């Protein structure tokens, strides 16, 4: 599996890694920076990670996905640092013999990543900024 934190996401790298003659499906989810949040214009996001733990937790999720579905390959790549609207910030990729497994595993991985992987984003608006999810 390919699991890493990077400054810049390379979608081609993820696809090249996932491609396999054994697979009949490659599912790639790309999370990107949206230019608005709760009615405010977003000018930038800053991503911060607890690197060692983020990698460990992503490995746990990958292991769970391999146990739940018959997957060929799996990639989780998350960006850190400053990202502007439109930029890719996370790539979840899965290849499998048939499409159901790759769709389901991809969904599982991004949903669980958002719950457990120690990565934080700060949203910057024109006038201020907030750590997303920090306060109720």
């Amino acid at each position, binding site marked *: 599996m390919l699991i890493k934190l990077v400054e810049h996401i390379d979608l081609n790298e993820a696809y090249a890694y996932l491609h396999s003659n054994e697979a009949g499906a490659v599912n790639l989810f790309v999370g990107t920076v949206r230019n608005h949040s709760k009615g405010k214009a977003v000018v930038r996001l800053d991503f911060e990670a607890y690197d060692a*733990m*983020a990698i460990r937790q992503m490995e746990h999720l990958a292991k769970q996905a391999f146990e739940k579905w018959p997957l060929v390959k799996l990639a989780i790549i998350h960006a850190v640092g400053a990202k502007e609207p439109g930029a890719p910030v996370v790539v979840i990729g899965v290849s499998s013999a048939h499409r159901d497994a790759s769709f389901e595993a991809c969904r599982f991985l991004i949903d669980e990543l958002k719950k457990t992987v*120690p990565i934080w984003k700060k949203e910057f608006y024109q006038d201020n900024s907030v750590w997303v999810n920090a306060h109720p």
Partner: protein
Amino acid sequence: MKILLFGITREITGQSRIDVPAQAGVTTVKGLKSWLAQQYPAMQGLTSLAVAVDSEYAQDEDVLNPEHEIALIPPVSGG
């Protein structure tokens, strides 16, 4: 006992690492959370606050060993 800080907890304390003095008597995850709440009242306003030991989530009753890498995990927001 040294504690690593990230995101909003780093901003609340103004440091990326804090030292819990031995006289604070902190021995468990729960004890650490209580000490933090006293020292940094703003921590109580967070949606949640978890503690990690050697890159794994710890439970409130877990005993903390200063030899391990201990970190605060405020609400995550990756993806």
